[in-house]
């Protein structure tokens, strides 16, 4: 096996001449490129008798096969791709002409492609910003007739998924980095245009600029890798992903392998095919792992005498946690109590205050208990009219109607950075609020 080594290799697209020079410098030292992986390249000792030459070329041919044939005839072999640029190496003993020999045409072509990719990136960012505005505007309101607390989309997402939390934290940095890159790109294109018009070589970026921008690119790639990796603990710990994701990855990878001629897509498809079973395994292990991990919200059930506990959703992220479950307590052969819980807990008080929002005006404080509010039966005018057609619609309607009954109570409890809403059904008349709340408050003290 030949000597191989890994080297750091991170350049912006506009600095591709510097990247090309680096590959050619390594070639003169006796190292040829094997593959590119993120901001790194794998090199190996050259065994051919001549020194290879590298050329980076924008990958956008309308007929890629035709272009590949022409390049092959001309003495170039494709090695790998980095971002939008294909890396070619001269065939042994071929000594081909450079792929681009018209400076003005080369500038125009790069400018057109760079600006188009900038436009697409800007559109993508605009869509994401619109989504962020939607998240932050509070337009999503999941409250129902009981109105114990408002369930907002952004806090729900931040406490549901590690990957989403990371995207939310990285997004402003990506926007800033992208804006800075656009300014740099415009400056470099301007210098290039002036050089071409004067018949001069395009100006090269300084060593400091190359390193700085290369590092910025590498950090961007690292943030993407972190988000991808976080999907695995999400699958293990949280309910954000289901088996459909693993199936989707597998289908996508098979399409990449068999439906495309592009070697990059095929390579990514093969790698994804390895990842899909791992993702499926994580999702299948979610149950045992979740049970062994307590998280911020204490373990359920609240009532030790509950005969049935249904845990709907439970998730933990560095920012927040949430859980939804129900408990049934058998009082006698014909009587039972039903509890529906929804809990949130946050890492910081500021975050908790923002996520919880104000206490709904319709709730009344429970006398003698700090941080506890109650709501009695729902008002008749707040109850929805039945408009459904399926059995699920009937079930939901019945649940809404039960909230109107006298044996129904709702509580909102806040303790520090934790909030719990409790809907209680079939409460025995005469039971005090303190009797209902005592086991819940004890559970919260854990």
């Amino acid at each position, binding site marked *: 096996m030949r000597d191989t080594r890994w080297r750091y290799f991170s350049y912006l697209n506009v600095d591709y001449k510097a990247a090309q020079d680096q590959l050619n410098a390594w070639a003169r030292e006796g190292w040829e490129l094997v593959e590119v992986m993120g901001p790194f390249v794998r090199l190996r000792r050259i065994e051919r008798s001549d020194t290879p030459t590298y050329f980076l*070329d924008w990958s956008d*041919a*309308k*007929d890629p*096969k*035709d*272009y590949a*044939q*022409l*390049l092959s*005839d*001309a003495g*170039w072999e494709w090695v790998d791709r980095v971002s939008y640029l294909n890396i070619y190496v001269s065939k042994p003993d071929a000594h*081909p*002409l*450079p*792929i*681009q*020999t*018209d400076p003005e*045409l*080369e500038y125009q*072509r790069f400018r057109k492609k760079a600006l188009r990719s900038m436009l697409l990136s800007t559109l993508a960012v605009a869509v994401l910003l619109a989504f962020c505005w939607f998240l932050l505007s509070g337009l999503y309101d999941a409250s129902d007739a009981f109105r114990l607390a408002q369930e907002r989309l952004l806090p729900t997402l931040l406490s549901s998924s590690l990957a989403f939390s990371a995207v939310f934290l990285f997004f402003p940095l990506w926007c800033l980095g992208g804006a800075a890159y656009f300014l740099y790109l415009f400056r470099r294109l301007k210098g290039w245009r002036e050089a071409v018009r004067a018949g001069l070589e395009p100006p090269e970026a300084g060593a400091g600029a190359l390193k700085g921008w290369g590092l910025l690119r590498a950090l961007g790639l690292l943030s993407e890798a972190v988000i991808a990796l976080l999907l695995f603990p999400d699958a293990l710990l949280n309910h954000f992903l289901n088996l459909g994701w693993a199936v989707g990855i597998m289908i996508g990878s098979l399409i990449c392998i068999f439906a495309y001629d592009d070697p990059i897509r095929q390579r990514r498809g093969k790698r994804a095919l390895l990842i899909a079973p791992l993702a499926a395994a994580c999702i299948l292990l979610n149950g045992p792992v979740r049970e062994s991990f307590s998280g911020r919200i204490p373990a359920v059930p609240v009532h030790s005498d509950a005969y049935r506990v249904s845990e709907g959703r439970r998730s933990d992220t560095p920012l927040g946690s949430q859980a939804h479950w129900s408990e049934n307590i058998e009082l006698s052969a014909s009587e039972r109590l039903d509890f529906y819980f929804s809990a949130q807990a946050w890492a910081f008080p500021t975050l908790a205050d923002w996520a919880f929002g104000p206490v709904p005006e319709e709730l009344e404080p429970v006398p003698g208990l700090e941080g506890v509010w109650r709501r009695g039966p729902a008002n008749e005018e707040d109850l929805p009219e039945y408009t459904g057609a399926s059995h699920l619609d009937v079930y939901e309607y019945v649940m809404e109607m039960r909230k109107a009954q006298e044996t129904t109570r709702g509580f909102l409890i806040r303790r520090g950075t934790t909030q719990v809403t409790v809907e209680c059904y079939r409460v025995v008349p005469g039971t005090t609020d303190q009797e209902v709340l005592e086991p819940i408050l004890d559970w919260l003290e854990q």
Partner: protein
Amino acid sequence: MARKKLETLTEQMYYVLLSLWAEPRHGYGIMQYVDTLTRGRVAIGAGTLYALLARFEEEKLIVFTGTQEGRKYYALSAEGRHTLQEEYRRLGRQLADGAALLREEEP
């Protein structure tokens, strides 16, 4: 497809069209013909040639005639022939103007 600004062809454009005057050729055949014709003076890289062929085809100066062994062949269109002849005449006038002046000054 003359450059609208100057209404001329670059040297590389001229030789690409010239290489298709006598017969259809594929991309690498064009590169080899130009290299032979100019004795290596005019070098057209594969990427540059690909971009030129795409533009010429878009401007209908050349037409795709078929594929053989995975290589696309192109031929000059009537408009391409006309453009090439115009450029040839223009270059001829330039040469004549230069000859009239410069030959007088030759020792």
